[in-house]
């Protein structure tokens, strides 16, 4: 990567924050094995508890935020982080759309608490898991469950250079074409969310003979219901269509709307009797 920032003057300060999440997106930064040490020369890693005990006081030039807001404390914490961050970039599906834990938005949180914990009264949890943008203004949202490390490096470079990141918002289908992967839906009849899902993973699943399962969330102009009809014609059951739209980006608006449409025709407690895509 090239970062044209004049670090002889002052290196920009980078902070990495965590909310409700699996740590996988911030791990992606540590997974930049070839770029990590050069990066640390270009930016000052000022707050990154997963990697270091040292803390440099804010304000910060760039804050990367992982995870969704799920507790009253987190609602306050994100406000303080926004106040001390020049640019705030969310990394991953949790921070950008609420994550898999947003499945609670469709259920009864009191019941959820009591299923997992013997003493729900010890917990402090909100009834909904919400993206960072529901609470503060966000300068850029990087998609993916998990994010792609090349996209992360591009977003960091752009933030440091003060330009817009070159992150495409077209669909996974375009990446399959770039990669030369034969369409798994057309050629094999494999149900695939590629047409409605934003690119960024490099069209990984189809290259492994598997349909896309939407971990980068909806692309710019997704026709979710048209694809749902196609998925049904490929042999998926209503319940499966509901579930495929209701995973790691379940609370993103297009996917939420589509899954709820199928809920009306197919109550989620009914069983299917045939294996489909997973």
């Amino acid at each position: 990567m090239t970062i044209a920032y004049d670090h002889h003057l002052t290196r920009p300060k980078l902070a990495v924050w965590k909310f409700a999440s699996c740590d996988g997106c911030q791990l992606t930064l540590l997974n930049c094995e070839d770029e990590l040490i050069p990066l640390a020369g270009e930016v000052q890693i000022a707050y990154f508890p997963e990697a270091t005990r040292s803390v440099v006081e804010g304000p910060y030039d760039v804050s990367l935020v992982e995870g969704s807001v799920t507790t009253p404390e987190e609602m306050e914490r994100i406000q303080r982080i926004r106040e001390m961050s020049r640019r705030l970039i969310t990394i991953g599906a949790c921070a950008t759309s609420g994550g898999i834990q947003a499945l609670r938005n469709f259920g009864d949180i009191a019941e959820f608490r009591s299923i997992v914990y013997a003493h729900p009264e010890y917990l402090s949890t909100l009834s909904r898991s919400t993206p960072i943008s529901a609470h503060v203004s966000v300068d850029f949202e990087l998609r993916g469950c998990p994010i792609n490390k090349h996209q992360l490096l591009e977003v960091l470079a752009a933030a440091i250079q003060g330009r817009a990141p070159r992150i495409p918002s077209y669909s996974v289908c375009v990446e399959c074409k770039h990669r030369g992967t034969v369409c798994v839906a057309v050629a094999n009849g494999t149900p695939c969310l590629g047409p409605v899902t934003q690119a960024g993973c490099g069209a990984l699943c189809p290259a492994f003979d598997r349909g896309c399962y939407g971990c980068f969330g909806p692309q710019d102009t997704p026709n979710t219901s048209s694809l749902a009809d196609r998925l049904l014609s490929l042999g998926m059951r209503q319940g499966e269509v509901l579930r495929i739209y209701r995973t790691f980006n379940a609370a993103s608006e297009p996917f939420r709307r589509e899954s709820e449409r199928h809920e009306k025709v197919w109550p989620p407690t009914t069983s299917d009797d045939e294996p489909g895509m997973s």
Partner: protein
Amino acid sequence: MSHKLTDGGQVMHVGTLSRVEGEGAMHIEYSGGRATKVELRIYEPPRFYEAFLRGRAWTEPPDITARICGICPVAYQMSSCGAIEDACGVTVPEAIGLMRRLLYCGEWIESHALHIFLLHAPDFLGYDGAIEMAADHPTVVERGLRLKKAGNDLMDLVGGRSVHPINVRIGGFYKMPSVAELRRIRPVLERARDEAIETVRLVAGFDFPEMEQPYEYLSLRPAAGYPIESGSVVTTAGKAFAVQDFTAHIQEQHVEWSNALHATLDGESPYVVGPLARYTLNFDRLSPIAQDIAREVGLGTTCRNPFRSIIVRAVELVYAYDEAIRIIDGWRDGVAPAVPVPPRAGEGFGASEAPRGVLFHRYVLDPAGIITDAQIVPPTSQNQPSIEADLRTMVQTWSDLDDHALSHRCEHAIRNYDPCISCATHFLDLTVKRS
């Protein structure tokens, strides 16, 4: 990391534990050199996986539960596959089991290299983190990054990507890597194995506080080989039981100060899972290269000092490369990537050795394969009582240290376990009270 001491130095408090996976804190109160209260506080918010797994299809747990942890997703994928296949009465062919083991070796390599070099070594060498350490010890940090990358490359090849691999399914894989692809990564693994042997020598030279854990150790033990992707349960007290009987022996309790459930073994706590337990219970199963280097550095066939866990992880790192090379050398093309796993009503149990210790899954399915109940027991919630017990012992032994030094050492003691807080929530703020 903040250190907050109340007046008179009665309370020590570390608000955000660093170089651990997830969010936790430590609270210690003591008087007259005796710890009166030690709490590992896990404030990582709960995400309710076991609740929203209800109503999902039997095919979904590998993708969904992977998201519990970005550092050990393969562990979740393997334990969930094992449990669902058990419920459906399917045993996968040996070759699929071997490819699972190969992917899992990639995760052990990535996770152990991350912990040894980036998270744990700075404690021994006196740095806040690996990036600070890199200024004085560039060759050590660069080696760590190379070793870690070899694990990620292996996961990319077999799993599609290292965080939340996409190639795992109930019954096996979507696509098998070819012999040609596997052979291409072999030289990388071979060089890494040599560097891992050097790593054992390096970390064995660190200074270790004296400490002997009296607790029971628990790990898996398969019919053959070192425990990774499967096995039945054994303990240092001589207990042996099937994974199906896990919940009959292991109970989880919800304590007020933690969003992670505390586990007990036959009503007793603490017990320990992870590298020390695996090594102590399965030294005979390590490959000759791994056994030789352990002997060379004087590790012995058992290890009960949690600070020495860094040496055990390095030995396991050697083993993981060695085992990966063995699997690659024996691989033949033409293996079907998966076997069908039709659903049926029933209960299934699965366990595998996450880098941090035994990870147990249990699912109940209805006749159509819809999950009606799910239970996940992660390694860190099993280790949480032993982490607290270690802290209690150490606070007593080291009561003459000043608060800063004591706090640092307590953090080090927590990192001995490579705790995975995101996993356990369902971790830490250090507070020490002196009187």
